[in-house]
């Protein structure tokens, strides 16, 4: 996708639907979508500094393991920053902005920022299905097995 906020809704919908098929509870589907949205917003606002022609690659794996896991990789060709400097701010400091990294880390189980070979950054984050949620979700989802086999991936040609 291009670094334009208008594409956020489509990215959220894709992630939310996949999380739902994996059996994540509805509220968690929304939160995982939020984490992805926040990560994309950070790239748009800070990585590409709101320039609309930057490229962002969103790759998603639905890992059919026990427990099932959603793994999301977001890559860009924006400016590189030291991963150690990507931190959430103190919540006691009540002011607009700066909540994105905190929200991502609160929602996802694992969050790793690193430099991408050839420039830009790579964010890898994952969320495992909480124990006991697959059965309850499947029982309320008609026509869905609540699982997606591995390899669901959306990529754009990076060449």
């Amino acid at each position: 996708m291009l670094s334009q906020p208008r594409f956020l809704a489509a990215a959220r919908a894709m992630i939310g639907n996949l999380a739902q098929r994996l059996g994540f509870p509805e509220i968690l589907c929304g939160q995982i979508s939020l984490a992805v949205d926040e990560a994309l917003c950070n790239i748009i606002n800070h990585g590409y500094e709101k320039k609309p022609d930057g490229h962002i690659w969103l790759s998603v794996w639905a890992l059919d393991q026990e427990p099932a896991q959603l793994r999301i990789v977001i890559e860009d060709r924006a400016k590189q920053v030291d991963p150690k400097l990507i931190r959430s701010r103190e919540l006691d400091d009540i002011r607009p902005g700066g909540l994105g990294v905190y929200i991502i880390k609160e929602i996802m189980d694992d969050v790793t920022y690193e430099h991408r070979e050839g420039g830009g950054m790579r964010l890898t984050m994952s969320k495992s299905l909480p124990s006991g949620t697959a059965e309850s979700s499947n029982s309320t989802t008609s026509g869905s097995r609540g699982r997606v086999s591995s390899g669901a991936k959306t990529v754009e040609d990076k060449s």
Partner: protein
Amino acid sequence: MSKIDSIEVKLQKQGDATVLSPVGDIDLSRASSFRQQIVSALTSKPRLLLIDLAGVPYMDSSGVATLLEMMQATKRGGGKLVLCSIQPKVRSIFEIARLETVFTIVANADDALKS
């Protein structure tokens, strides 16, 4: 601003209260449109600015930042900003960011307008 980047916000006046009811997701693409419409509503210096979020199924931190900024602006003008009818998915971001106690949040518009 194109249609995809703007948000519909219904405005209603009830005495010295102004009720704003946005409709649709509030994310980075629409936060600016949302902000502009709140700023416009604040020019009449309402005693109570009620943001009815019943029609908002999703909000990210851009929307929350806008609300925080507008809460502070309302306070500076001598008024109070109150949120109502927050959907569960939207409430979730307020909880994650521990902002439920920073904002005044009531169940519905009637509760806010009665106070």
